[in-house]
């Protein structure tokens, strides 16, 4: 997949490939795309490490490379962000790196840093949460000598003969980096085609990551299949929308689409059908509203650290792309479409909250909560003002940290059979581990949007921006939904604090340094962003997208 990205990055713009006139070397602003290149480059190196480093030493090497790459990318991003405020398009106008994009990149990098920490942890699940081959229902490897009925399942594209026996499936690191690279491109894509390629580059590794759980293989694989099928389905929608918009505007450059919407003689059917289909594809990725069907299943089935990565980073990428699309390409036509997204936002909130109340599994519950949050994010996304953009960006950052930490904590509560995700297992957790319960409570309160947490500041920012843009009714609906959603979280707090624990219930694992670091990062940022939001708001408000 990196190949595709590389190809997308390396090949000249579409018009130049087959044309017989001599092609100019497009100028590349290396400073602007350095973070992207570092991440993708590290992913490639990760693949080589998989190939050449002996199995026993892969884990430390991979962890080192991944974390270092993300850090380095962050450093370069910081340096670049200091330099410019105006933004620029580069790589033959396929990428547009502006202030908002830089913010999204920063968000993605720091969130994926946390997610990588979670993924890297081997202390909670001995040997890490990922494995290539195990036998179907039985856990882990069968003892030697038992006849193996179902042969081991080669789950990744490449079978690995013995990696299942020891250690961890270290392919997750390059996969994560590839996915991260795709997300970064996605937020910066300046034309729909690049966006589509990026969408796939970010999705395909995720599909695989979902299916790599060491425990509960069937669930995990099922999640992968569902995610894959529905994801591919949604990509097809996006693509058809792309084709229609191409037919409408004669180009897939966002700026040219914008120009066309401002005044085009072509049929508006193409425009709105295309826009609708493209947006459906994006909404699917962001697990919004009626396009959420995959979310609970995938969140439930995927390894928890991957779920954390998905929940935090994918959302950022999807909404980053959506924001870019709406702000850059479709602002002029917003009066025609904005009520549709209005409805979607409401539906998403309602679905998330109402169905979330019926869930008995903590991961599914958080999944529905993420759907509700997607609804809130939609409120910000359709607020096409600078303030709305800044607010949505801030919300994404805040939500990402919180949800990352949530899944970090979820991975700690375990029974002998793996993670205890059933809500009933969480009863009385405060008595077993007050610290974990306290941290989780704080995070849940942040999800609920209680003041002094980042969740509140995010909601506030989004809602006030939407209100200022004249969407008061939507804001009121959103606030009511938040109130209802609070019940979702309070329910868990009640369970943890005021119920008696089951003597056979789960234990709370002592997290290793990695998980501790990730959870701490999430919690501290949740608190900091809630108390001193200016840290990020300032940056988020620097400027908008460029094209």
């Amino acid at each position, binding site marked *: 997949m990196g190949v595709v990205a590389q190809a997308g990055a390396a090949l000249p713009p579409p018009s130049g490939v087959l044309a017989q006139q001599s092609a100019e070397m497009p100028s590349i602003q290396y400073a602007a795309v350095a973070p992207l290149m570092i991440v993708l480059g590290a992913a490639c190196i990760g693949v080589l490490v998989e*190939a*050449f480093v*002996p*199995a*026993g030493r892969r884990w430390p090497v991979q962890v080192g490379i991944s974390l270092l790459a993300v850090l380095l990318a962050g450093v370069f991003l910081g340096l670049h962000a200091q330099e410019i405020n105006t933004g620029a398009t580069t790589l033959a106008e396929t990428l547009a790196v502006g202030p908002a994009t830089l913010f999204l990149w920063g968000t993605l990098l720091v969130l994926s840093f946390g997610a990588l920490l979670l993924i890297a942890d081997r202390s909670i699940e001995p040997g890490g949460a990922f494995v290539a*081959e195990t036998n179907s229902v039985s856990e882990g490897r069968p003892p*030697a*000598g038992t*006849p*193996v009925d179902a*042969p*081991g*399942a*080669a789950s990744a594209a490449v*079978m*690995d*003969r*013995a*990696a299942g*026996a*020891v250690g961890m499936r270290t392919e997750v690191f390059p996969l994560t980096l590839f996915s991260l690279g795709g997300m970064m491109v996605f937020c910066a894509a300046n034309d729909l085609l690049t966006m589509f390629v990026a969408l796939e580059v970010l999705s395909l590794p995720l599909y695989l990551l979902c299916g790599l759980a060491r425990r509960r293989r069937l669930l995990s694989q099922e999640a992968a299949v569902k995610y894959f099928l529905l994801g591919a389905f949604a990509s097809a929608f996006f693509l058809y929308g792309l084709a229609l918009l191409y037919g409408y505007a004669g180009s897939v450059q966002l700026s040219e689409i914008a120009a066309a919407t401002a005044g085009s003689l072509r049929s508006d059917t193409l425009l709105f059908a295309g826009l609708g289909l493209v947006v459906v594809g994006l909404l699917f990725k962001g697990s919004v509203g009626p396009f959420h069907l995959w979310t609970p299943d995938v969140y439930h089935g995927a390894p928890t650290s991957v779920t954390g990565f998905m929940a935090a980073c994918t959302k950022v990428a999807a909404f980053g792309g959506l924001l870019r699309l709406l702000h850059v390409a479709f602002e002029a036509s917003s009066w025609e479409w904005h009520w549709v997204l209005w409805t979607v936002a409401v539906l998403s909130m309602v679905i998330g909250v109402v169905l979330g109340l019926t869930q008995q599994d903590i991961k599914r519950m958080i999944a529905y909560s993420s759907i509700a949050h997607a609804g809130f994010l939609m409120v910000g996304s359709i607020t096409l003002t600078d303030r709305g953009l800044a607010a949505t960006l801030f919300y994404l950052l805040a939500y990402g940290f919180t949800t990352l930490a949530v899944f970090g904590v979820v991975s700690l509560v375990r029974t002998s059979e793996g993670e205890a995700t059933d809500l009933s297992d969480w009863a009385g957790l405060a008595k077993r581990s007050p610290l974990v319960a306290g941290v989780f409570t704080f995070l849940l309160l942040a999800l609920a949007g209680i003041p002094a947490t980042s969740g509140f500041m995010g909601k506030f920012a989004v809602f006030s921006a939407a209100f200022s843009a004249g969407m008061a009714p939507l804001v009121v609906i959103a606030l009511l939904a938040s109130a209802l959603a609070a019940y979702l979280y309070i329910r868990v707090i009640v369970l943890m604090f005021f119920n008696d624990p089951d003597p056979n219930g789960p234990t709370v694992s002592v997290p290793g340094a990695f998980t501790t670091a990730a959870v701490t990062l999430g919690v501290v940022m949740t608190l900091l962003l809630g108390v001193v939001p200016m840290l990020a708001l300032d940056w988020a408000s620097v400027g908008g997208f460029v094209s």
Partner: protein
Amino acid sequence: MNETARLIGDDPIWLILIKVVGTFAFLVVMTLLTIWAERRVIGRMQQRPGPNRAGPFGMLQSLADGLKLAFKEDIRPVLADKWIYILAPVVSATPALVAFSVIPVGGEVTIFGERTALQLVELPVSLLVVLACASIGVYGIVLAGWSSGSPYPLLGALRSAAQVISYEIAMGLSFIAVILYAGTLSTSGIVAAQENGWFFALLPFSFVVYAIAMVGETNRAPFDLPEAESELVGGFHTEYSSLKFALFFLAEYINMVTVSALATTLFLGGWHAPWPLYLVGDGVLNTGWWPVLWFLLKTMSFLFVFVWLRATLPRLRYDQFMNLGWKVLVPLSLVWICAVTAIRGVRNADLLGSQQFLFIGGGVVVALLILAFLVPDRKPPEEETAENEVPLSGGGYPVPPVDLKVPENPRATTVPTASGTRSRLPEAGQEPTSSTKEAPDGND
């Protein structure tokens, strides 16, 4: 649009029909002749006469065989998937016939007063037509094996398909250097580009890769594993009989002809007269109907090599065969393409000042890549498989260990007891349980 395309484009419909029928007839006749020639040549090589009864030198032998096949019973196994079973030979034979239509057999000629080129179709993407037909042909194989409802054809088909697609990669990669130099995908364009030098000399590695891939692609010896009689009965067409079988046979030989013709076109200058001859009479031997002769000669020499190989080389093991394709041909082709691209690009860029530098850089890149591709291989990376673990095959099936220790004959050390069970003699001086310890670990 080049000259050939214009010539062909002006063809009236009757001429097109003549060419179509002519091409068809040519291919069928070539098939019959090739089969006969193969049997005769191999016979000679093996110190026996070969077919010599039907017609002069037995030349009608293949025709007789074909007719005989037509009058054989047409069997369709009960487990077969009817329509696919019937469709498969058609799918196999049709693209084989179509693929040849883009091959330029000769240059410009006049037929019944109409100026035209000796080529059925001239397209800007001719080479892709060949590749596409080769790919579709695989469907015929897979469908035949699958629809037969029988294990041997299925396995044969899988092998065959895997083999064909593996070597298709190598084949496709070998085209790239040629295209790079010809600057076109059109076959006549490629032939025209070789006017001043055939590509097999300019691009020797591509030629070698193509020559090998060509044999693999057509499932010919020494790469005829799908039809390995001793292992898989008859490969994917085990369950076929009568004319359906004949179609597969036909397809195989037409493919041979096609790949040979393509080799001629891509690397041996197509219909151009060979070295000393094109100097004769200011190139008169490159005009009119002469080129057909050169073309046929070149193609037939390739066909002869096919036969020669079959007679000479033993069949490869499947893993050897796949290794050759994936671990030698493909990577080296990639390296080769890099090198060719770099050298050509640098030369065209007229970067005289930095040329040396870039050459060195390219050399380093290539050297690194070669190194990289040479480093791996041999032992599978994860050697830490513990002693007591079941070794997994590719698909994760448990297989018995190779060093299976044959248990000693129980008769030698046991005596029948009263209860009828056998027990180890006490003088063996061993615990009774030790016998179980000696049981091969890997087998439990």
